[in-house]
């Protein structure tokens, strides 16, 4: 029996946050601080011929202006360095004078106040030579489009393929074949707290950046690389983080903050600097979820057994790589669903365009892949006249069935159990497949029509594909006879998900002490190493193991009378392997979580509005270390996925963002979200997880869009292969909004 694991204890950050004591990056102020303001390019593709800062520099209160020539290594990136820190002439990297999307940064003003900085920014004269805008990924890779990055043929940023069996040999053995082209939209992270930070030189002479991010160590590396300084001369500290969802994985204000401090120090000025992006700067300045085009064909036998799947994925990477290659890998894994398919052919492309950059976002390519897979499953079920739940159970992965990349899944596969759980708890009943709506012979639908839909999914935990996943933690036990204080040092980012609380629970459990004995020291590269990123649903699993191990080591030292007893651990996850370039064969991941959802909708056939009345979501989390936080993640993921599916509509025209604020880009409010969510926690322990836990922050997101689409089909008989399913799209599909109106 565990004492603290499995209990919904109060969050360690609750009091500070509800009383307003906690400092977010924008809340930190220094007496003599200077302010930064960024000049964004605000044009999608152009060469910068010249930058004239003389008038701006002459403005009283302006302390300095940074441009490309001031950046020691003017190229950075999480996966590959392909983005200039500042675009403009004098860049020491090839192509650094070219702006590739509206959010490229051109100059940074340092001034006595934010107002002066903004005024000076508007006085900077930039001479642009506009270049043709590539905004369509299919055109971008066609061979006819301009090349956006030196040496990247046909703008193909990444390509992956899978070959298993031979689909072409079995199509004529299929009783049904479903062929579709899916289009998934952009999505904006819309975290409450826009990008912000402060920077200064600390007492140890390190350039110190306070900000909000997802991986202190990686931020430190990228800053050091761009500034051409050793990493130990850079210190990254996270203040409280107001949401991240993947949008803070890549650099935003980190490098320029450090650069400004360096620039000032070189001129004998030792003053802290501060920046806060406003909402528009945030929306154009950070990445979005990848829009994807997924062309796919699946075939099944009359008994429902899947035989073949062919998939082509075209992912719009936007202007720079960010994590597009890794996201693509996840889409490849999820695009054939949590099912065994003997014959699979996948070709996947991530393509550069001049659209806003795409990057990490909760689910990390999974929601796009899952949408295609689950839509195919629901369409197959309809064509076969079969219960979609039964069809899924028939094909669901088990420990001995192979993924499309040719290997089995380690650590337990509870897909079938989770599907049954969701079906059972939602009282799922199959009453026969609905025929498709025919706009030429419109049915006389009542004003309100209801429907139910089902979808399933699986989501990997941790970074893998050959990367040696690792996470660091340190535990220091102080006291005499009894442990009076246990200091737990971890770097993992609490982005609002409750990571630190869970780490405290694990430490307290292992050490056998009460929670109030635990003191957390977190997210500061001065005394924490790499715990890895707050992404890929990985922190509970990875950092949880590190904390467990460090606590165990410390405890044995304590028992051996060491005072204080200090121990650290770097936990290494089981090995994985990269995609084989020819066949895609690999052991992609060491752990997964499993999810299934039932969704009930009402469609208003007069206005086209969809309301979601009920969601039943079953999730195998291995072990719910803090059940209330698990439910919070399930509900949060569903709300965010609800926006993605129905309401949020990020509009871009020729590379320019038409929805750069929250009056044009709407996210769901309390009256828009599903009326009722039943969160069902399934616990099938993972052998390697801390106390059996699997990661779970992303998976409830995955099946939502296809489950809603299936429910809408059940209601009105229309498959929506493209979303968000806006009222207008609904009415068009029903033949009500016609071109001649």
């Amino acid at each position, binding site marked *: 029996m565990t004492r603290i694991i499995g209990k919904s204890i109060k969050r360690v950050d609750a009091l500070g946050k509800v009383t307003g004591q906690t400092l977010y990056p924008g809340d930190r102020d220094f007496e003599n601080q200077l302010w930064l303001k960024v000049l964004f390019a605000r044009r999608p593709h152009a060469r910068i011929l010249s930058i004239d800062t003389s008038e701006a520099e002459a403005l009283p209160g302006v302390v300095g202006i940074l441009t490309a020539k001031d950046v020691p290594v003017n190229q950075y990136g999480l996966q590959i360095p392909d983005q200039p820190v500042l675009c403009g002439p004098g860049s020491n990297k090839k192509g650094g004078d070219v702006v590739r999307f509206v959010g490229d940064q051109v100059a940074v003003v340092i001034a006595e106040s934010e107002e002066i900085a903004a005024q000076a920014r508007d006085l900077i004269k930039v001479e642009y030579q506009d270049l043709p805008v590539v905004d369509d990924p299919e055109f971008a890779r066609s061979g006819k489009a301009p090349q956006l990055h030196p040496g990247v043929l046909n703008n193909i940023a990444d390509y992956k393929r899978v070959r298993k069996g031979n689909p072409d040999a079995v199509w004529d053995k299929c009783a049904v074949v479903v062929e579709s082209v899916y289009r998934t939209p952009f999505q904006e992270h819309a975290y409450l707290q826009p990008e912000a930070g402060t920077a200064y030189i600390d007492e140890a002479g390190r350039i110190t950046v306070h900000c909000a991010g997802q991986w202190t160590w990686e931020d430190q590396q990228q800053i050091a690389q761009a500034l051409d300084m050793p990493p130990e001369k850079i210190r990254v500290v996270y203040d409280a983080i107001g949401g991240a969802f993947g949008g803070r994985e890549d650099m935003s204000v980190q490098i320029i903050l450090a650069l400004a401090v360096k620039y000032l120090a070189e001129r004998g000025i030792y003053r802290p600097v501060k920046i806060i992006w406003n909402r*528009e700067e945030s929306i154009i300045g950070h990445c979005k979820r990848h829009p994807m085009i997924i062309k796919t064909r699946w075939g099944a036998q009359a008994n429902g057994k899947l035989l073949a799947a062919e998939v082509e994925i075209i992912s719009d990477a936007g202007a720079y790589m960010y994590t597009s290659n890794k996201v693509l890998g996840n889409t490849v894994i999820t695009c054939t669903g949590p099912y065994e398919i003997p014959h699979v052919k996948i070709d996947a492309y991530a393509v550069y365009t001049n659209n806003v950059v795409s990057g990490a976002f909760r689910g990390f390519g999974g929601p796009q892949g899952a949408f295609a897979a689950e839509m195919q499953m629901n369409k197959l079920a309809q064509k076969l006249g079969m219960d979609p739940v039964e069809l899924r159970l028939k094909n669901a992965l088990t420990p001995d069935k192979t993924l499309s990349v040719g290997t089995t899944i380690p650590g337990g596969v509870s897909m079938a159990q989770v599907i049954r759980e969701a079906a059972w708890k939602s009282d799922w009943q199959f009453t026969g497949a609905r025929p498709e709506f025919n706009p030429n012979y419109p049915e006389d639908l009542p004003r309100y029509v209801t429907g139910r839909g089902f979808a399933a999914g699986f989501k990997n935990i941790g970074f893998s594909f050959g990367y040696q996943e690792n996470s660091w933690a340190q535990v220091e036990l102080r006291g005499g006879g009894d442990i009076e204080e246990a200091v737990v040092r971890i770097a993992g980012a609490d982005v609002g998900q409750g990571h630190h609380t869970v780490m405290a629970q694990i430490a307290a459990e292992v050490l056998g002490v009460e929670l109030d004995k635990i003191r957390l020291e977190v997210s500061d590269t001065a005394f924490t190493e790499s715990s890895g990123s707050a992404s890929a649903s990985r922190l509970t699993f990875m950092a949880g193991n590190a904390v467990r191990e460090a606590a165990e080591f410390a405890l044995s030292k304590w028992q051996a009378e060491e005072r204080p007893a200090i121990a650290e651990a770097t936990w290494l996850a089981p090995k994985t392997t990269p995609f084989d370039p020819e066949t895609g064969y690999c052991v992609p991941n060491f752990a997964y979580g499993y999810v299934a959802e039932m969704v009930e909708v009402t469609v208003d056939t*007069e*206005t086209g509005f969809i309301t979601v009345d009920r969601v039943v979501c079953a999730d195998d989390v291995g072990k719910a270390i803090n059940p209330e936080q698990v439910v919070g993640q399930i509900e949060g993921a569903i709300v965010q996925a609800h926006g993605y599916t129905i309401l949020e509509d990020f509009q871009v025209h020729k590379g320019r963002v038409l929805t*750069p604020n929250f009056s044009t880009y709407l996210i*769901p409010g309390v009256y828009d979200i599903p009326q009722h969510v039943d969160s069902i926690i399934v616990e099938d322990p993972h052998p390697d997880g801390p106390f059996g836990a699997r990661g779970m922050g992303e998976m409830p997101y995955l099946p939502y869009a296809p489950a809603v689409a299936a429910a809408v089909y059940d209601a009105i008989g229309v498959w929506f292969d493209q979303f968000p399913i*806006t009222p207008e799209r609904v009415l068009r599909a029903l033949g009500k909004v016609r*071109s001649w*109106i």
Partner: protein
Amino acid sequence: MHNPRPGLPEFDYVRPASLSEASRFLAEHQGEARPFMGGTDTFVRMRDGFWKEKYIVDVKRLDGMGDITFDPSTGLTIGAAVNMNRVIDSPEVQEHYPLLAEAAKTVASFQLRSRATIVGNICNASPAGDTIGACIVMGGVLKVHGLDGEREVPLTGFFVGPGKTVLKPGDIVTAIRFPVLPQGHAGRYIKLGRNALSDLAIVGVTAFAYPDDTPSGYRFKLALASVAPVPLVPEKAEEILTGKPITDETIAEAAQAAMDACNPIDDVRGSARYRKYMVRNLTRRAVTDVLNRLQ
């Protein structure tokens, strides 16, 4: 991308002691001064850099601007500075002008409505203004103080274009006045926004009617939001509903006429086609609801 520098620009806050002084000040500073009520439009436009006023002229506390008065023989007068929550809560409004409360309730959120005013909504002259339709169909008349003293300006013909009205430099609306409404009237405002709360109208339909000696037995008034450069009165649709016995066909015909009268644009909130189609559907629904309420 119109927001290079959020944060309000510098301006002077002026509080004249009388309406005459305020009118004079506004006229003298034509183009650089504005009367201000709740400021919920003004500050947003200024922050976004669309308006560069040097002076914000607070007239909220002048003669009767903050009063709601009802007189059974002359009607309702709402001072320009009365915020929407007060209008919604007013027993007289609820009893005699419920349509106004219904429309005001669709504006943004409670917080916003504790500042936003009906007169501000009207003077801002956005085609999307949610309370404007109700004011038009119930025969609202603006009381205006200008350089030449007081006058009354009816809402018909008041709107000239998006953000443009017939008000002249120095004009201050002090109140909106409504006549006593005919016995047995009923109204309905249906707003369609992309979300449940806080979006501006993709389309808004106001319908209002009262028993009268006409072929249909009623006189009908309609107004449409967000479908033309100004709040739109679809007169033909009104005539159909007034001039023929009410049947499903008449309602459908009127809804079609309302749709044909409008000339919406495409924007991020919806396409012109969707808007037109919604005008037809929502007009049908609003008229039907009014008929139900009339019974």
